[in-house]
């Protein structure tokens, strides 16, 4: 794999312009806004247990992280 440095100065083992390097365009919406309640959702965790986010939170503050992949 050829390593190339992008305009931010970051190196990655993928060519410039590769979809794996596609970043958030300027002005692109970023989902729920400050002041909005996060949508309801239920997803399985690594054990297969269904986690209902708002129920599991149980009136705690929370941090919800969307990341690209644990594989690559």
């Amino acid at each position: 794999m050829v390593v190339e440095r992008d305009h931010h100065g970051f190196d990655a083992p993928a060519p410039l312009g590769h979809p794996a390097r596609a970043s958030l365009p300027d002005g692109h919406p970023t989902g729920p806004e400050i002041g909005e309640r996060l949508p309801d959702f239920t997803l399985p965790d690594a054990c297969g247990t269904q986690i209902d986010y708002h129920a599991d939170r149980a009136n705690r503050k929370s941090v919800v992280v969307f990341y690209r992949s644990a594989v690559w």
Partner: protein
Amino acid sequence: MRDAFDKFAEHEIGLYAISYDDQETLAEFRDKQSIPYPLLSDIDSAVIQKFGIVNNQVTKNDAILYGIPYPGVYVTDENGVVVTKFFHDSYKKRDSAELYIDAALGRLVLDNNAPQATGGDQGIKLTVAIHGGKGTIRQGVIRHLVVRFELPEGLHIYGPPVPEGMITTEVQIDGPEGFRLMPPEFPATEKLTLPDIAELNVWHGTVDLIYPFYATGELASECRPLDTPSVDINVLVRYQACTDSECLLPRTETFSLPLDLDVIDIPDIEIHRGHGQRPGNYDGTPALKRLLARKIKQNPQGVPLFIGKNLWMQLKALGRKLFGRD
């Protein structure tokens, strides 16, 4: 994030991480990396779609990548209402977990895991601290350099702008090539009106001036061995503290903080081999094969198209490297 988990638990903040990976992959990842918080599997990217943050530059024919989000983080209050969110103009920029905790708590909790230095005089305590993780440097990972003044009752310092002849609080930060500062974050100043003289912007009590920073490839590429195990960040702080009626002498203090560079574990899969500083303990190949199989099922033509596109882009990159142009 894993290292900071105790802090999330201590402050009773729920932490959830969502990706399009399958459960088996997440279970392996959790076990190998000892991750104590829920890794949720959004295998068809339905929740990523619902939030409206699917990476729409990745097409269906980009095979294994299809369905990834623009990475980002939401911090909510007890009602699940967003108080802050973190999205950046590069997927490489990531905030330290401590910054999410600060956002949830609405205050900055400095700990002494990371390098710091103290100064000050005349009852003023001045701390220059790195905030985030252990303060180590890593490509794209955002830490905060915090200049904290703890001013005794009755004293204040000045924020910009100040009238001519007065001294505003000034911070200069110098690091090596590839050390990048982001726009600083200052608390709001208060107005202090001196009748017939001036209207001034002042800070008093505990004042945190925050300078976010990260490293680029010049300093901490994740694709080659590190040039140096640590670097010095030099900080100059100039200020003048005053009461409402008189001023102390202006002071200039300098600090030097040695910051270690992180040695990064790279995923042990073909595309990453030969790069990075140390192979990870996690063999991603079976997970990659499952991901490939799943994406072939969804869109059989996507995989050969993606492989072809990938090869073509690699060739063009090689051309740029050899001949300096496309």
